[in-house]
């Protein structure tokens, strides 16, 4: 199982799922209507490192963070 956390204003509780790659996570999250507006503008971190490749392999206990648009300062 991997854990998905939704940061900042998304306001959604974490979910757990079985996934071998980030592509599996994408497929499952796309089925969630509440994320439809968020996913196109969110970046992704795997165990707190930013990632950019859907084929990234996942292992048991990985944490995936979904980061919506930012505005510091």
């Amino acid at each position, binding site marked *: 199982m991997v854990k998905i956390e939704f*940061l*900042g*204003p998304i306001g959604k509780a974490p979910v757990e799922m079985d996934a071998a790659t*980030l592509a599996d*996570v*994408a497929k499952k*999250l*796309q089925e969630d209507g509440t994320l439809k507006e968020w*996913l*196109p*503008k*969110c*970046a*992704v*971190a795997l165990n*707190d*490192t*930013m*990632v*950019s490749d*859907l084929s990234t392999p996942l292992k048991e206990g990985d944490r995936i*963070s*979904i*980061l*919506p*648009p*930012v*505005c*510091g*300062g």
Partner: protein
Amino acid sequence: MMELYHGPLDVKEIFGRWLDEEAESNYGAYIPFVGTIRAEDGIEALSFDIYEPVLQKWFDAWQQKAKERGAVVKMAHSIGDVPVHTSSYVSAVFSPKRRVALELIEEFVEDFKANAPIWKYDVKNGKRIYAEDRSTPMDGSGLLA
């Protein structure tokens, strides 16, 4: 060095302390930047969420970039509510000569706005409203869409 505080920043204390920290480091230039909350659109305050583990990695990467140019970057940011006319963000670059510091402060502050994992909310009538129209998708956004 990166510092996070709950509520508004004590700008004078931070800049004074940073000046003292580098007093003997032989830097010829010290360029501070202060971000102050402006009163506009009827807001009482801005409020911030931060994801510290990714922010720390982002900042560490900038420390390394600065080091390669002989410079040091520092920053402090607020978590939670920050009233208008107070400050939520300060940063600074120290470098041996002015040119590197002038360039770095611009690159650092601009990348901070685009890629530091911090979320801003307007506070109106005690309610937090996500500042969606002023927010920027981080590099690599849309991967899961």
